[in-house]
């Protein structure tokens, strides 16, 4: 996983609430056995007509936002399915940060496993950043994970919180299977005792 330290990039506004995983990556693109290559189908039904031509008013089709690395989104982003194809598609497109007032639980966890930082902020801060993101190519925002600070295009700063363990993994690009395997003695001991207590499991 790529390390996440600081991202400076264009923020794209997506004020729609409840952007679900079927919108982020429709099911016909889940028939892959790889993690890569999904960026071209990110937001497919919102982004493209059935003939494959672009829907020009969709935000990521507008020239200013084609290289967006940040999305500022309406409430409850990522609701729906557990498909990790959603963060894979975002990452493959180049998105490293999503900012919203709230995220669906599974999507939120999946982001961290893929080097994407989901940031939860109060409504007024999201409103401010949504305004900033509306400035097109000038909507350059910096996310500093170490100091947990977002710097807007006008230099305004917003602090954010992030779980300490998840931050550590993101900053170091850590694979948490390796981390868990370091606890294999504890797992084995648990398994032995628990297995003796619940032999039907």
């Amino acid at each position, binding site marked *: 996983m790529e390390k996440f330290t600081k991202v400076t990039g264009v923020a794209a506004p997506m004020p729609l609430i409840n952007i679900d995983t079927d*919108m982020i990556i429709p099911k016909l693109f*889940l*028939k*892959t056995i790889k993690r890569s290559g999904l960026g071209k189908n990110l937001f497919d039904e919102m982004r493209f007509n059935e003939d494959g031509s672009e829907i020009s008013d969709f935000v990521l089709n507008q020239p200013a936002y084609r290289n967006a690395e940040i999305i500022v989104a309406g*409430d409850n982003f990522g*609701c729906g399915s557990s*498909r990790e194809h959603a*963060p894979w598609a975002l990452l493959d497109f180049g998105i490293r940060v999503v900012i919203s007032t709230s995220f669906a639980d599974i999507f939120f966890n999946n982001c961290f496993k893929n080097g994407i930082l989901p940031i939860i902020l109060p409504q007024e801060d999201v409103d401010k950043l949504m305004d900033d993101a509306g400035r097109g190519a000038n909507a350059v925002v910096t996310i500093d994970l170490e100091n947990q600070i977002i710097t807007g295009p006008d230099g305004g700063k917003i602090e954010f919180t992030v779980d300490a363990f998840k931050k550590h993994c993101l900053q170091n690009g850590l694979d948490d299977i390796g981390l*868990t395997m370091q606890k294999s003695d504890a797992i084995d001991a648990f398994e032995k005792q628990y297995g003796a207590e619940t032999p039907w499991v």
Partner: protein
Amino acid sequence: MTAKTLYDKIWDAHLISEDEDGTSLLYIDRHLVHEVTSPQAFEGLRASGRKVHAPDKTIAVPDHNVPTTLDRVDGVVKNEESRIQLEALDKNARDFGVHYYPVDDVRQGVVHIIGPEQGWTLPGMTIVCGDSHTATHGAFGSLAHGIGTSEVEHVLATQTLIQTKSKNMKVEITGKLSAGVTAKDITMTVIGLTGTAGGTGYVIEYCGEAIRDLSMEGRMTVCNMAIEGGARAGLIAPDETTFEYVKGRPHAPKGGLWELAMEAWKNLYTDEDAHFDKVLTIKGEDIAPAVTWGTSPEDVLPITGIVPSPEDFEGGKVDAVKRSLEYMGLTSGMKLTDIQIDTVFVGSCTNGRIEDFRAVADIVKGKKIKEGMRAIVVPGSGLVRAQAEEEGVAQILIDAGFEWRLAGCSMCLAMNPDKLEAGERCAATTNRNFEGRQGRGGRTHLVSPAMAAAAALTGHLTDVRDL
């Protein structure tokens, strides 16, 4: 000793370690695996030379992609990508030595139907699967939730999951349900009240007389949609109904082990003084047959209602409702019962169990569905299919004009050939009415099996109590 909720008890029993910041390592009792969210996880194991830690606790079944038409027994899956994914699961299951129900096994079916059916799902367990509707298994008083593919790989490799504990929420349904009102109407009504983010950060325990009165099938329907309300999981404390259902299942404990398990399972309840961070109480008699009108599972109304107007809402929901109504092709103020339907789908992990098909059969027996209606019934497993045939339920459905299919997820998410065309409108017993969920441009109204049957007969959304 501090009073504990059911969730607290299951959590504590599976906690291997907990760091200062609350990051915890939980032991996982059952890992269910299907073809769509697992290939990258198995590939990850291969790449790092890791094994499956507990193959005897890992159960694989193909369900999302499999065709449900009778010609699938020829073994030909026409969609190349689907075929590759099914072949990958087949190879992975065999290479890594996990329990496996291939497409041609009569026990094959939707992963959340066959877990309980085969007795893999037991009270007090932790159960995960790379599928959000894993919440279904909470009906047995087990902590069950969906995970992403990275977590699938983590569980395969370690039989553990890194978690932080959720908060406790209680949803109590008091008293009795009225005639024509079902488990599906309960769970949809709850989401209508909480919203799709109302449960975010919580594990919900459903309780109250109306929940106790439900069969296991009904309880699974309720818990299945906990995720649509944003909750990590839904739980119902096990009782005699649960034990009765579990006893004798192929992988349920037998003899002395059964006695031992029962001793433990009888402690699976929330202590009297346990703390809930949020409580919602609904009177059973206030719940009506429910239907969705929009493109979010929170867009729920009683069937007696009218299509709302964006002005009825506040904040970001105003624009979301405008978009929904346009997508759904509906006008504010029209009666929900005036919405014309051209497709009916009965099935899915929400409503693909025997009781669901019996409910449909009760309503359509001796009748014919509306002319021109496409009505598809997809049983949740090969065994549900066999049972429905033996009971005569299948024949009633066929005589009424329904197509009677083989088991799979089918038109719930349209990854197999069953899907809606743009503009088609479906009364579906499924769990999501998102834009494009059942096919690009397709319009979905979520309903109970009884309500789907009523719509199939009349050709429009119909109050089943009026039939």
